[in-house]
C-alpha cells in the first residue's frame, strides 16, 4: 500500500538562507552569493526528492539568487556594479528584516509572561495554560535535520544522489515505529533511527515520518551545539496549533 505524504514546509527560504549562513560560518553582510546559490539549490533538490512541498517563495528566492550569480559571473569589464548591488540588496534586505523579527520574537519570549512567570489575581485553579517556548537546547530546524539525514545517506550509500520519491514505504507505519522506539526512553539519537539494514527508500520514509512527528507536536528535536548529534524526545504536552 503506497502512502504519499505531502509535507508542508514549516520554514521558508529565509530560514534556509539563515541556515546556510550559520553552517558556512559567514557574516551576513559578506555572503558569497555564488556559493550560497549552489547550496540553496541542492537543498531544493533534496526537498523535492523527499516530496516536501517546495512553495513558490523558494523558487522566487532561487531565481533571485541565480540571477545575481549570473551577473557576478560576467567578465569584470561588462559587470554592471550598480545592478549587482541592487540584486544583492534584494536578497539581503528581507534577510536582515527577518533577523530583526527573529530577535523581536526572542525578546517577547524573554519577557515576564503572564501565567508563566507572573500571575494576576483571580486565576482559577486548573484553568490555565502557560506559554512555554519551544523546548530545544539549540534551535534545530528542518535544514539541520536535512543535513543530518544527508550525512546518514552519504555514509550508507556514498555517491548516491537522491533524485526520486519515496512511495513504497508507509510513512504512517514508520511514525508508529519511531514513537514505539521512544517509549520508555528519555530520548533517542537521530542516528539510532537509521541503524540497521534499511534500503534507501526505507530511510527516506523514516525521515519523513520524523518530520511529520515534529510537525504534529509528538516529538521535539534538539542538539547541544551546531553539528553535534540530534536528539529526539517524546512530548506529552499539547501543542498549540
Amino acid at each position: 500500500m503506497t502512502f504519499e505524504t505531502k509535507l508542508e514546509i514549516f520554514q521558508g527560504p529565509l530560514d534556509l538562507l539563515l541556515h546556510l549562513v550559520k553552517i558556512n560560518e559567514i557574516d551576513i553582510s559578506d555572503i558569497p552569493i555564488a556559493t550560497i546559490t549552489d547550496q540553496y539549490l541542492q537543498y531544493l533538490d533534496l526537498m523535492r526528492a523527499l516530496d516536501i512541498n517546495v512553495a513558490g517563495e523558494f523558487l522566487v528566492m532561487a531565481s533571485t539568487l541565480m540571477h545575481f550569480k549570473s551577473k557576478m559571473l560576467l567578465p569584470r569589464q561588462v559587470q554592471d556594479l550598480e545592478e549587482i548591488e541592487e540584486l544583492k540588496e534584494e536578497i539581503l534586505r528581507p534577510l536582515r528584516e527577518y533577523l530583526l523579527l527573529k530577535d523581536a520574537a526572542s525578546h517577547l519570549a524573554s519577557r515576564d509572561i503572564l501565567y508563566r512567570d507572573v500571575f494576576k489575581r483571580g486565576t482559577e485553579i486548573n484553568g490555565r495554560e502557560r506559554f512555554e517556548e519551544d523546548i530545544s537546547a539549540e534551535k534545530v530546524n528542518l535544514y539541520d535535520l536535512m543535513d543530518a539525514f544527508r550525512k546518514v545517506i552519504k555514509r550508507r550509500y556514498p555517491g548516491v544522489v537522491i533524485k526520486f520519491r519515496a512511495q513504497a514505504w508507509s510513512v504512517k507505519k514508520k511514525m508508529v515505529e519511531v514513537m514505539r522506539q521512544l517509549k520508555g526512553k528519555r530520548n533517542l539519537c537521530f542516528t539510532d533511527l537509521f541503524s540497521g539494514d534499511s534500503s534507501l527508500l526505507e530511510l527516506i520514509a523514516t525521515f519523513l515520518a520524523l518530520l511529520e512527528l515534529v510537525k504534529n507536536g509528538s516529538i521535539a528535536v534538539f542538539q547541544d551545539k551546531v553539528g553535534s548529534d540530534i536528539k529526539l524526545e517524546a512530548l506529552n504536552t499539547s501543542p498549540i496549533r
Partner: protein
Amino acid sequence: MDNSLKLIVESLLFAASEPLTPRQIHALLPGEDLKEIKDVLEDLKKDYEGMKRSFLIREVARGYQFRTLPRFRTYISKMLSTTPSRLTRAALETLAIIAYRQPIIRQEIERLRGVDVGGILRMLLKKGLVRIVGRKPLPGRPIIYGTTGKFLEFFDLKDLSSLPTLKEMEELGDEEVEQ
C-alpha cells in the same frame, strides 16, 4: 495627610483582576481629579516596590495591575496546575510581526516570514492575542490584523511603544558582537 483616595484606588486594583486605567478609575470617582488619581497610582506603585513583598503593582496594558514576582512562579504554577503549551518559534515570530507592523494583512505577514501563517493566525485569534481590525480596501478585501490588550497584558507591556524598537535591537545585536 488624608490617604483615603489612595486606599480606595488600592482597593479597586486589588478587587479587579484586569489592568485598570486611570480613566476607568476616574469614571468610578467622578469627584476626583484625574491627575490626582494618576499621582496616587504612581505612589502606590512606588510603595509596593519599596515594601519588597512577593507582588507589586505593574504598569501594563495601559493600566495598573497587581502581579506576583517571577521568583515565585514555580509555587504558583503548581498551585494553579497550569499546563504547558508550546508557543512555537513560528507563532512567536508571527506575533512579533503583527506587534511591530500592525495594522497588517496576512499576505504581508507571509511575505516577511516566507511561509503560510493561516493556522497560526487562527490560533492567535482564538487565544485573544490578535484581533481583526478591519478589512483593506483591496481586491479580496483582505483582513487586517492587530494585537490586543490581552497581548500587552500577557507580555508585560505597558503599551505598544514599550516594545523595543527594531533599530534598538539591531544596535543591541551589534553591542553583543563587539563584546
